[in-house]
């Protein structure tokens, strides 16, 4: 531990942390652009300069480690003047094109100009240095060089995190520019992170550009469904459509990053949704669908219930209880035929299901293909696109009554005798347990689409129609029962945030 004095108050902090992080522990925010807790400090933006007694020049807080006895002032006249001066320099060649800039509303220049600038401009517009406005850096990212403040976060991200030297700061002085090497593009599988860490509107997302103003977005903390890592994300929606996904810092799981596949893994939530229950005779109301499902299940000689490693722990548990209460003779097996992808040493895991571990803990893993081969009369598939993942299973399922609880019109739902719409993870509460056994909660950001219901509510309805008693007063009751029944799920993991990264 180190004792230091921060703005006149003696404080104690762990050894080896820099002044930005140390001050933040006591609610003192030191403005900064180039510093990012996940990257090596560079000290080039000079915005975080603070006064340390005994040192004549201001020191950059990002590169100064707290030392015992240090006396630090973050709000002295000298410091505040310096910040205003740095802001003036940063805006000197900035195009101030906020009205057409996607970063507006979440821009470090706007934020700190309001907090630390508010100076009168001494620059004539025609004196500004003009640079390239639309540089196609790669599949995800567009660069506007005029907006760039050359903090080099993106360069350091590629070098240090993605492990590829794709970006460089070329040229000198006022002509400095971020660029790729000639003829090369920014295409590493984590390239989208440079958009998030860019403190200004220089790097924008091709996917999100010009879609919606950020202040209209509604945000919820969630978990990426892309693989069994369980990266923490924010899902952001406008008019009940997901607009973008951003990483949410969690030092234990994904630090500050997500992969590009995860970033784009939301389009399916917005399109090809199953809006109403449909049977062979046409559309059904929810109640009618539950009764229809009950009829099919009742008439079948043998039933197989298929669970999915994409379902939440709570929904998996509800399915288990459904079997016990309503169909005690039915087989219940979980599994997935989703083709694994290539993992890497950064975040991506080969298994593309977010809850394989939770399904195992709940005792639902088994030989799914074997169970299907045992020729049950009826197969009820919950959140599992068996036919999309393995089209050859169509032969095996021919002649069987297929009931699909599905969010989308996927191949399985299309083939089903009865398809009932359910909510995606973006519309419900739930939890997944990642490959390390870490159970993490996700929260709804969208209203339920069409007549979709949470899986457990659909199961309740079918059970009711089957004459069984299965009911939870609310989601909380289901969750409590789930965690009690399966202590190995542990408790919900907290998400330790990532320090002073938020601009």
């Amino acid at each position, binding site marked *: 531990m180190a004792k230091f004095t921060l703005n006149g108050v003696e404080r104690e902090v762990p050894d080896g942390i820099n002044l930005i992080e140390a001050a933040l522990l006591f609610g003192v925010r030191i403005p900064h652009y180039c510093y990012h807790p996940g990257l090596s400090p560079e000290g080039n933006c000079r915005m975080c300069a603070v006064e340390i007694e005994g040192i004549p020049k201001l020191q950059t807080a990002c590169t100064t480690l707290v030392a015992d006895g240090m006396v630090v002032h973050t709000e002295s006249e000298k410091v505040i003047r310096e910040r205003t001066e740095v802001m003036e320099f*940063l805006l000197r060649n900035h195009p101030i094109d906020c009205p057409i800039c996607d970063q507006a509303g979440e821009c470090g220049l706007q934020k700190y100009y309001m907090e630390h600038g508010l100076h009168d401009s001494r620059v004539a517009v025609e004196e500004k240095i003009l640079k390239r406005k639309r540089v196609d850096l790669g599949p995800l990212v567009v660069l506007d060089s005029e907006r760039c*403040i050359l903090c080099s976060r993106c360069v350091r991200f590629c070098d240090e995190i993605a492990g590829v030297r794709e970006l460089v700061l070329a040229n000198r002085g006022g002509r400095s520019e971020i660029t790729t090497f000639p003829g090369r593009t920014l295409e590493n599988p984590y390239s989208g992170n440079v958009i998030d860490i860019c403190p200004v509107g220089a790097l924008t997302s091709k996917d999100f550009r010009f879609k919606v103003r950020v202040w209209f977005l509604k945000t919820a903390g969630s978990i990426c469904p892309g693989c069994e890592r369980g990266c923490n994300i924010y899902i952001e929606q406008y008019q009940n459509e997901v607009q973008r996904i951003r990483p949410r810092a969690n030092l234990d799981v994904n630090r500050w990053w997500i992969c590009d596949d995860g970033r784009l893994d939301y389009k399916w939530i917005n399109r090809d949704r199953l809006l109403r229950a449909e049977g062979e005779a046409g559309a059904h109301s929810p109640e009618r669908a539950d009764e229809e499902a009950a009829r099919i299940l009742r008439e079948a000689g043998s039933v197989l219930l298929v669970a999915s490693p994409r379902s939440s722990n709570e929904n998996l548990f509800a399915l288990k209880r459904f079997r016990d209460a309503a169909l005690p003779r039915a087989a219940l097996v979980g599994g997935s035929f989703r083709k694994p992808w290539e993992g890497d040493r950064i975040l991506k895991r080969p298994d593309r299901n977010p809850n394989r571990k939770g399904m195992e803990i709940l005792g639902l893993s088994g030989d799914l293909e074997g169970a299907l081969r045992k020729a049950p009369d009826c197969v009820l598939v919950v959140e599992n696109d068996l036919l999309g993942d393995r089209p050859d299973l169509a032969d095996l399922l021919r002649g069987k009554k297929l009931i699909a609880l599905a969010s989308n019109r996927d191949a399985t739902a299309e083939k089903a005798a009865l398809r009932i719409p359910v909510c995606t993870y973006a519309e419900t509460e739930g939890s997944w347990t990642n490959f390390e056994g870490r159970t993490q909660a996700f929260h709804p950001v969208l209203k339920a689409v069409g007549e979709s219901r949470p899986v457990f509510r659909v199961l309740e309805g079918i059970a009711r129609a089957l004459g069984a008693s299965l009911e939870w007063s609310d989601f909380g009751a289901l969750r409590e029962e789930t965690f009690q029944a399966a202590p190995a799920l542990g408790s919900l993991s907290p998400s330790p945030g990532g320090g002073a990264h938020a601009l």
Partner: protein
Amino acid sequence: MIAETILLKARMVNPDSHALVSARAAGAYRASAKALAEEPEEIVRLVKDSGLRGRGGAGFPTGLKWTFLPKNRDATYLCVNADESEPGTFKDRLILEKDPHLLIEGIVIACHAIRCAHAYLYIRGEFCLPYERIRAAAAEAYAAGLLGPNAGGSGQPIDLTIHRGAGAYICGEETALLNSIEGKKGQPRMKPPFPTNVGLFGKPTVINNVETLANLPFIVENGPDAYRAIGTEKSPGTRLMSVSGHIEKPGVYEVAHGVPMRGLIEDLAGGVRGGRKLKALIPGGSSTPVLTAEEAYAVNVDFESVQATGSMLGSGGCIVMDETTDMVWALDKLAHFYAHESCGQCTPCREGSGWIAEIVQKIAAGNGTRKDLEKLESLAAQIVGNTICVFSDALAMPVVSHVTKFRAEFEAHLADRASSSAAP
């Protein structure tokens, strides 16, 4: 009348002074042989006692810098700063061209003193003849066994790698120089850690200027007392002064520290060109504050005397400006240079250098206003002190000194000058 005091230039008058045969005939490598027979600590002590101060610009005591190396270290590097990029300075070039073996001998002594087995010499890319000369001299030294696995028969290896720069002023800044040798962009590093702890390739490193190292043979051979007998108490030894500009006999003059500047200008360099009067003098390379004629004639050539005027002896690059010089034009040239050479890393320097250059240009073109002049002064104050290296100070100092000391000239250039003020 003052005269030169010759320590470093002694052999340069000989024919083929750059060749090993000629240099050896005149005593080269006697001092390094003596040094290699001594314990390294003894050499460090000698250099400390001599009071030798760095000739690159800051004047830091060389022996003291060497002692900053950590006690337990697995490797040490010596970097020879031959980037000589400060406008007005061309004395290292003289050594490289005329007596490269003096430098190599100094390198051998320094390597022995700091236990360095591999020295890197970073030479300015535009230095063509100096590069050819130092490369040929190094080859001769290797062939003669003065460098190599058994340097000077000492049983210890001393290798010398010569690395050419690619034309960036900032690479003369020692940590940018390290980055450049490592193949990175030449941008200064954050300090601490200082190079003596974490330097080239992450190892403890000493960076010394060419002229500094060239002083070592004399010190080793004649002892610290003989060295201290020359110059002043705080600035012992001689100084290679590069004199250029409006001067009758531009060139490199070696003078004992402490001689009057007037003597250097008038006795040695033949006085101001065409018998004109002196208007201004930049005493130590383009980044040192300009002196008025009055100030220039009152100082002596040593660190402390020039410092007392608020300027610096720096790298000893004297730029002489006669009475016909337009000081706004002069600053315009300097500001343009610094805007062009800012590495672009730190916000204040990157944005400020270009902005300052633009304003000076505007004033020089007669389009500036009183507001521009005020802005110029406030920007110069704004860029000082909040950057990774001292480049921004190196720009601010000439700006502030030019505007303060020659204010009337700047005001006369303004578009909105008061009608009563003198026409330009």
